């Protein structure tokens, strides 16, 4: 008995003093962080799971604020992406239009009405009650007699007899019903030299073949129409009471928010079935040289004022007005984005404050509730730092678990939360114009409405959320942990 006692006693004597000094720098650190805190961590986890209901409530509350915290940047990022997408769209549209215009520098377009299928909606005009006008062969012969004309391509554009009514929904949420022709008939010249020289026929044949010189009573139709009617290559279709065979299906570009359904056939067939022999609705006049364009256009405009004439110059002008419109749109988008960002910053600050306050109060409550335990631990030789790190660890653990919950809630609710908290990015400064449709020639215009930006969580965002959780946990539990460390053990033991 005596032996053991002496041995024990020596631990506190000179021997242990030396040992203690040597290991002071390394040992202290190791003792506090590695050896001690594995136990502290286990205790923190056990403590946390002790009050299941309370833990759950705290986790849900914290989880929501964490979810908001990550949903807002996700929403901002989605809006930025949408804006960037828009810019790219604009740029590529402008570029492709530019190319198209440059390719057709010698083209003079003559139409009998201001709008046509290829200039967007509404199509298949004329409006009811208005006499439909055509260009006849006498006029064509007169124009053809001018100097400097290389080729003239005739088109006849007619509406189908059948009509459909369709419901259209605006991006703003409004819906309305319109009635329009089921499809548009495009009668085109099937002269082989014209077909090969200019882009008259649709380029994108997905089934069957394209039209060629000498075709009669056959047509090709846009895929949306063939889908609508359930027709395939080789099937028959009645147009104005005449039977046609579908020989090909083509893809048409989307124009406006409604797709154009169209059939292409020989202009003679189109003229015959619609009773418009010798009539055309559009002429594409190609000059020998760019320098001839103005003279020809001026002459046609002077002699035939009822015709709508567009030249290279006109198209350039409309392009530049479009560019202006685009850039205003983008400016609007960017300014709303900037507003959104500043609002988001404020919201995030509020949420961060709220989150750390929740942690602060929960931890303060925990410290109060466990005063006796803290006193006991101190009596057992836990240092102030041990106590402090114990409670810091608990705070961080709570907010980490909340972070996981937040990511779960956020990944499901990010689009909803961000749309709830951020203004809808409007590209038109609030005017609900329902988008505008730049229409020109046969280029593919983009639909520009208010882009819907769906917020989604990315990996960096999730990692950021965990970082924030650790930080907020530490921040929120700093003061309560400090309070715990400062508790006087003798008084804690009296505390009931």
């Amino acid at each position: 008995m005596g032996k053991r006692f002496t041995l024990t006693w020596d631990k506190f004597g000179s021997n242990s003093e030396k040992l203690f000094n040597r290991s002071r720098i390394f040992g202290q650190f190791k003792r506090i962080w590695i050896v001690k805190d594995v136990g502290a961590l286990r205790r923190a986890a056990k403590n946390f799971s002790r009050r299941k209901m309370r833990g759950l409530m705290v986790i849900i509350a914290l989880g929501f604020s964490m979810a908001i915290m990550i949903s807002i940047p996700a929403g901002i990022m989605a809006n930025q992406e949408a804006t960037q997408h828009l810019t790219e769209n604009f740029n590529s549209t402008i570029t492709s239009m530019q190319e198209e215009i440059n390719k057709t520098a010698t083209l003079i377009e003559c139409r009998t009405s201001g709008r046509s299928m290829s200039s967007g909606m509404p199509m298949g005009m004329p409006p009811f009650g208005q006499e439909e006008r055509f260009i006849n062969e006498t006029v064509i012969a007169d124009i053809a007699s001018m100097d400097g004309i290389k080729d003239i391509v005739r088109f006849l554009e007619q509406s189908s007899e059948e009509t459909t009514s369709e419901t259209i929904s605006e991006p703003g949420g409004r819906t309305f019903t319109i009635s329009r022709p089921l499809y548009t008939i495009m009668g085109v010249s099937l002269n082989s030299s014209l077909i090969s020289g200019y882009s008259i026929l649709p380029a994108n044949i997905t089934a069957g073949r394209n039209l060629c010189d000498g075709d009669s009573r056959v047509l090709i139709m846009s895929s949306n129409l063939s889908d609508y009617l359930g027709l395939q290559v080789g099937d028959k279709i009645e147009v104005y009471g005449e039977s046609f065979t579908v020989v090909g299906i083509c893809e048409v570009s989307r124009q406006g928010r409604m797709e154009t359904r169209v059939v292409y056939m020989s202009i003679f067939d189109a003229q015959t079935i619609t009773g418009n022999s010798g009539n055309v609705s559009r002429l594409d006049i190609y000059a020998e040289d760019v320098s001839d364009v103005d003279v020809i256009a001026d002459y046609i405009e002077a002699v035939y004022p009822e015709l709508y004439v567009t030249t290279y110059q006109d198209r350039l002008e409309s392009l530049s007005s479009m560019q202006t419109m685009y850039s205003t749109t983008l400016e609007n988008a960017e300014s709303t984005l900037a507003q959104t960002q500043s609002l988001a910053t404020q919201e995030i600050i509020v949420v961060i404050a709220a989150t750390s306050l929740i942690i602060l109060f929960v931890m303060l409550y925990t410290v109060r509730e466990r005063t006796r335990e803290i006193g006991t631990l101190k009596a057992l030789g836990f240092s102030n730092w041990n106590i402090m790190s114990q409670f810091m660890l608990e705070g961080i653990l709570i907010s980490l678990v909340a972070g996981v919950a937040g990511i779960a809630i956020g990944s499901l609710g990010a689009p909803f939360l961000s749309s709830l908290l951020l203004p809808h990015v409007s590209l038109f400064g609030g005017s609900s114009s329902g988008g505008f449709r730049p229409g020109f020639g046969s280029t593919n215009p983009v639909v520009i409405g208010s882009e819907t930006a769906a917020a989604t969580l990315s990996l960096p965002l999730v990692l950021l959320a965990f970082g924030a959780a650790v930080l907020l946990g530490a921040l929120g539990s700093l003061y309560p942990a400090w309070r715990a460390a400062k508790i006087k053990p003798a008084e804690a033991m009296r505390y009931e």
Partner: protein
Amino acid sequence: MSELILKTEKLTKVYNMGKRKVTAISGLDLQISKGEFVAIMGPSGSGKTTLLNVLGCLDKPTGGTLLLDKVNVSELHEKKLCEIRRNKIGFVFQTFNLLPYLNAKENVELPMECTKRSKSEREKRARELLAMVGLSGREEHRPQKLSAGEQQRVAIARALANDPAIVLADEPTGNLDSQNKYEIVRLLGNLNITKGTTIVMVTHDSQIASQSERVLLLSDGKIMKEKQGLHLVKKKLMCPYCGSRIQLSDVRCPSCRKRL
């Protein structure tokens, strides 16, 4: 006289309650030797808990000196005091103060957590200590699954974890029925005999106090009286009532049948 482990000179503790001052200990002189089993008695408010807290470095005296193993503790800072509490003192409380979310073994391991012992060493020692207080097989049980007496045994095992020089027990039997009271005080007595552990125990119960070897009577923060207890005789493994030989495991004296 054997080596002193604890010595106070004119020890004073005054609480400041705003303007009013409460003197809990007033100029108390006390000497306790290594291996003693001392009981402190006294009326409520006489300063027993305060004295024990000061002796255990949980509270600082406002005057006088306190020598703990020849170290003047009254001059030390909180950081050093914490080390002394960890390494030299074992506390046993009236309300056990076990951590409810830890099992018996983990509770016993707690004081060793801040020491150099490895995890496996800590576990091994916790098992040994629990076996010593008669709780082998109950290592994984949480406090709420243990009876009051068993909880106090766990607390005693925990107090012994770092081989303290002195065990301070504030009314360790205060929350126990008479059966358990005697078992706990017998356990403390046996530890004192087998391990040589110095024990200072506060109690209201004179029957329990008489089981120690020296009883101090405290009144108004001073020691008023001192008397011998039965334990001194028991240390020689003799029955304090009839003087016949006894064994440590005996609950009653084999010849006079009195409770030991």
